[in-house]
């Protein structure tokens, strides 16, 4: 934003027009995302301080080492499944970019195609998360229950699972909202709403939200699976 204001002539701030040259909804979306970033920031910092203040923590490589239809007795596959999940979500961001781009070109077919792909990506991510949660639940993990020992073999507090389910759950809720938004966008596109308006700006705002949710996942992924 600073660069925008620096390069924009001063008259943009003199009233009668938007200083950032955007309509109000997009500006609102940016401020909302800032607000939402603080929500996630608070969660992740809470997680970080609690973990820092706790002696011992389970090893993510041991906890997250399965995948669907994994043969009985095969060697553990640390972080394989979550890597696939992450890959799917990032690809869905790419298709979202393509949908926004198609919108700029007033290409309804392209918008519809790439929105469908984005929605599928989001649903696939949610499906993966559902599988992972179910799997962990069957291993005995849930809010208030933690079957995984610390990496040094001592008994762990329940805060590993408490934070894991709360924060990935909150993120999953955001992905779910994003999918709902994208479905609404898809329906509006199919009913030519954007053609009538003469622009696809709504898709752009939905795209901002979708990329944000994607970006947050990078941090959640890093904090829970990598560190």
């Amino acid at each position, binding site marked *: 934003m600073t660069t925008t204001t620096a390069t924009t002539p001063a008259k943009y701030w003199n009233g009668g027009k938007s200083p*950032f040259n955007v309509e109000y909804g997009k*500006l609102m979306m940016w401020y909302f995302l800032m607000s939402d970033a603080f*929500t996630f920031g608070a969660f992740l910092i809470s997680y970080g301080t609690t973990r820092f203040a706790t002696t011992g923590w389970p090893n993510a490589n041991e906890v997250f080492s399965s995948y669907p239809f994994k043969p009985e007795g095969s060697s553990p596959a640390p972080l394989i499944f979550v890597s696939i999940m992450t890959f799917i979500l990032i690809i869905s961001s790419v298709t979202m970019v393509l949908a926004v781009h198609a919108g700029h070109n007033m290409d309804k077919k392209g918008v519809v195609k790439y929105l469908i792909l984005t929605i599928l990506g989001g649903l696939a991510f949610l499906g993966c998360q559902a599988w992972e949660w179910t799997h962990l639940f069957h291993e005995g993990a849930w809010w208030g229950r933690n079957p995984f020992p610390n990496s040094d073999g001592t008994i762990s507090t329940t*805060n590993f699972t408490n934070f894991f389910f709360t924060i990935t759950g909150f993120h999953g809720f955001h992905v779910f909202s994003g999918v709902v938004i994208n479905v609404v966008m898809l329906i509006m596109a199919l009913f030519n709403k954007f053609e009538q308006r003469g622009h696809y700006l709504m898709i752009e705002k939905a795209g901002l939200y979708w990329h944000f949710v994607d970006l947050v996942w990078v941090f959640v992924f890093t904090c829970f699976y990598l560190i």
Partner: protein
Amino acid sequence: MSNEATLHANVDVMVPHEIHHGEHHEIHHHHESFISKYVFSQDHKMIGKQFLITGMFWAVLGGLMSVLFRLQLGYPDSTFPWLEDLIGKWGKGGHISAEAYYALVTTHGTVLVFFVLTAGLSGTFANLLIPLQVGARDMASPFMNMLSYWFFFMASVVMLSSIFVETGPFSGGWTAYPPLSALGSASPGSKTGMDLWIIAMALFVVSSLLGGLNYIVTILNMRTKGMSMTRLPLTIWALFFTAVLGVLSFPVLLSGFILLIFDRNFGTSFYLSDIYVNGVGALPNEGGSAILFQHLFWFLGHPEVYIILLPAMGMVSEILATNARKPIFGYMAMVGSLFAIAILAFLVWAHHMFVTGLNPFLGSIFVLLTLLIAVPSAIKVFNWITTLWRGNIRFTPAMLFAIGFVSLFISGGLTGIWLGNSALDIHLHDTYFVIAHFHIVMGVASMFGMFAGIYHWFPKMYGKYLNNNLGYIHFWLTMIGAYLIFWPMHYEGLAGMPRRYYDYSAWESFKQFVELNRFISTVAMIVFAVQLLFLFNFFYSIFKGRKLTTQNPWGSNTLEWTTPINPGHGNWVGEIPEVYRWAYDYGKDGKDFIPQTTPVGADESTDH
């Protein structure tokens, strides 16, 4: 997206929007039904009134609560049989029970801080003033604005219902520290009362977010032609920073609440560790930290203080300049100090936690940052005083309340310098000194800002004047009363008298304050009664007040006074006026005032 495409899209969006507001609404103005005009209104002026009247309802209730618990503090040995009639088992034998006392203190704090001084203050005046003073037909999104009020309304209903549950409303203090707030077994109020409290607060956060986004975007995007940022009235700058503070700090509180909900209901231990509850035994929770909640709470809690204070500061700046018939002194310094306060607001939260187990080294950093706030605060105070200096002052009730605000802000601000020192805080924390400090600097001062705003903009809201004589009585009794209530509390606090105690009679050292406490309670009741006088004035004047005969009763420069006396939805008939100058050309070139819509003359200097 190429720049050209942005521009193109922008034109497409902005222009229909403008037309929509300009013509559509005036054509259909007469078809508004009762529901769409008064209930689910999307007119920012009506939404502002809704916030104001709901806020007034809560102010009366919250004020009444303080009268009830002051009764206990001032007259601990007397019995009042009517109490049992009023609050039933909570006032058995004419005596407020300990649980009721704590519930009253907690609800009083929550309601006054959030429902009155946040929603009632910035909800009212941001809605009323932003579109009117920046020159817009309405908020960026009138629909979201309507939702903002109705989320607040739902929060109010839930909070109100918590008063009527069998185990009583939450009673662990407005800060809702765990474990009292996290464990239902900790106290009666921690059961259903706390569930309702947290639901109400979550709804409130949503309301605040919807409102705040709208305020920010309206100010940035919807200013009329010529209304550059440095021509904005200071009210708008203050409301802008208030909204930014709210949008960035409430989500952190929401995170804290979500973790709290899990601790309460789903067996987690984010805030809990090593706890033994009488009658329940040792709890299995391990690994959490109650301090974590305090960090999350005060990361909102401190900016919240400025969310309350900044709108009052903005309105006071505007009212002082208008009624002193002088330009505001140091406009850019005023904006800069608002900005500095908004930044510092995020960097000082741990001064509420000096003695709760915070690392003392960390404390010393927060002392430094806290004391830095004295700098922008002093800039503002000096600028207000220099605005008054040699002014041709008109002592309207609004002006009196604005001057009262400055007085209270100085008195309460100075004790802030004491409390900001972590070493002094060892002695002063959790005493009546703290109560005195924050009630004067934040509570009463912001109430004064709100009163000033109501007296000043009542003509714009209802097309009538408030009664001046009642206003003067209201001001003087409230002003004197506020000092008489809170000034003595400094002495009590310095003597070590702790806050939040139900009964002090067991302590020999506090026996000296029995009569002082009785005095404070008596004054508190009188001041409460005076507010009823104001309420009478308010509602009487809506219907029977002296009618406005001129668009601009105060001779003010800002845009809201260029609208019709009773503006319809859309505010201006015809074109929105263009702005040519800042809002503070008072007493310039021999002219009493020059509205912002007056083009700059050839022989005029053009600093702003």
